[in-house]
């Protein structure tokens, strides 16, 4: 039965599901960054006309999903399953969005790796014939995450140099068994393989060192993916991690070089969404983080670049740091996780 499994951790998506719709939305600060053009919508006010930050995040997720369905030319009724997650306690943002969307819903939590987690599971469901079309997404909001995990926004504290800035953003994609929305002859993105990552704990205890906490997991998943598929890193035009940020990206590159990968190839084929979303002048210290970071960069810039022919093959690896609001206080370390999905333009 399990004939689609290759190697230790990778599955082959035999029917190569199509990614036929994408939608993303960004907050004010994200809209001032280098990726401003790649957002479908940019908020003037991060409250988004709502009464609470949580409601605003929920509305953002819904807006990204509506846009993705519009591009896919599908109605809610045509979507079989909605898979998404966020960072807020018991993923209430996604649950409330699912309540409003009224689509069968699988809530997922993979911390900031949620975008790839939902995309991997969704693609597998479509590939296996369990669903015709699914929608996968993730969201995060600076103000909801910051008050939950760190300090209240108004609190007068200085952010350490390694601290990352939670992105106020959401992204969603529609994965389908057939590319109805895309005209014949036009480029279409398909999912080819997926690698499910293990939880890797390198023993980091500092909640302001997320990049360093997640990098070993990303390295582990990437090396396993390359081994399972028998590929080298330059098979992909771009290998992109979720939100390692500047520090995590450097660590990742260093660890990959240690593992025997060619340094020039790493340099020219690897990047991180957390270093793409903001410019260094925006004073975000370690770069961007949050579910919305990789979700909005992927559903915006990366897919757009693929459609326009800039990249033919991409390996998307969102990375998550697994901590709760209390686990660091109990002296627990912060393990990381990363999942990977290979995408190809046809």
């Amino acid at each position: 039965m399990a004939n689609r499994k290759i190697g230790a951790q990778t599955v082959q998506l035999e029917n190569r599901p199509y990614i036929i719709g994408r939608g993303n939305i960004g907050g004010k600060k994200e809209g001032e960054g280098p990726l401003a053009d790649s957002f479908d919508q940019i908020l003037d006010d991060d409250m988004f006309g709502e009464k609470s930050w949580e409601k605003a995040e929920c509305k953002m997720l819904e807006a990204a999903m509506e846009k993705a369905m519009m591009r896919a030319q599908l109605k809610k009724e045509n979507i079989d399953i909605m898979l998404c997650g966020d960072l807020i306690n018991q993923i209430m943002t996604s649950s409330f969005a699912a309540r409003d969307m009224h689509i069968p819903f699988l809530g997922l939590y993979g911390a900031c790796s949620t975008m790839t987690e939902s995309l991997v599971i969704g693609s597998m469901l479509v590939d296996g014939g369990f669903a015709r079309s699914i929608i996968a997404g993730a969201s995060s909001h600076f103000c909801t995450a910051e008050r939950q995990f760190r300090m209240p926004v108004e609190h007068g504290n200085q952010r350490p140099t390694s601290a990352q800035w939670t992105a106020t953003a959401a992204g969603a994609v529609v994965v389908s068994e057939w590319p109805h929305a895309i005209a014949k002859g036009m480029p279409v993105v398909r999912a080819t393989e997926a690698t499910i990552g293990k939880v890797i704990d390198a023993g980091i205890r500092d909640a302001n060192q997320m990049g360093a906490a997640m990098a070993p997991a990303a390295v582990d998943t990437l090396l396993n993916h390359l081994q399972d598929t028998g590929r080298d890193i330059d098979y992909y035009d771009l290998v992109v991690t979720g939100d390692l940020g500047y520090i995590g990206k450097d660590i990742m590159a260093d660890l990959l070089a240690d593992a025997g990968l060619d340094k020039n190839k790493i340099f020219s084929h690897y990047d991180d969404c957390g270093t793409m979303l903001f410019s260094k002048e925006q004073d975000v210290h370690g770069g961007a983080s949050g579910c919305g970071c990789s979700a909005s960069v992927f559903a915006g810039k990366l897919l757009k670049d693929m459609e326009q022919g800039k990249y033919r093959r991409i390996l998307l690896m969102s990375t998550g740091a697994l901590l709760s609001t209390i686990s660091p206080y109990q002296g627990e370390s912060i393990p990381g996780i990363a999942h990977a999905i290979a995408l190809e333009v046809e």
Partner: protein
Amino acid sequence: MALQISEEKNKEKEKQKKEIGKAYGKYAKQFTPRPKYFSNSVKAFIVGGLICTAALAVQNRLQAMGLSQKDAGTFVTIGLVALAQLLTGLGIFDVIAKHAGAGVIVPITGFANSMVAPAIEYKKEGPVLGTGAKLFSVAGPVLVCGISAATVVGIIYWFIEKF
């Protein structure tokens, strides 16, 4: 017997895990930019010093108006607390603190800010269990530790006085 061995193994595993964590933490530190110790300290020194000097000027002024030293000091504290809380409400305090750091956190202004900041953030959770409870999420520990320590000191001094 077997249980004991596995316990020992677990302990060893824990120890190993800790060592890996330490080594990796050190390795990760190479990639982390160091904080600007010197310029941060200079900024904190100047801002903190200025707040104290301004407080002294107001205190002298109040005393010249005829208030006792103790009362004048209390009014100065009240004024600083109220000002810091107002600035927090207006969303200005965190902008100042971003540059001044400990210069505004260590004076009583930091204590005042630490009460309003979480309280304002949890407004949507209601005036009792939201704002009311969160007013003490940071200030609570400060009051608990400070008052407990002082009470112990009081009792010890009472003992010394008595016997």
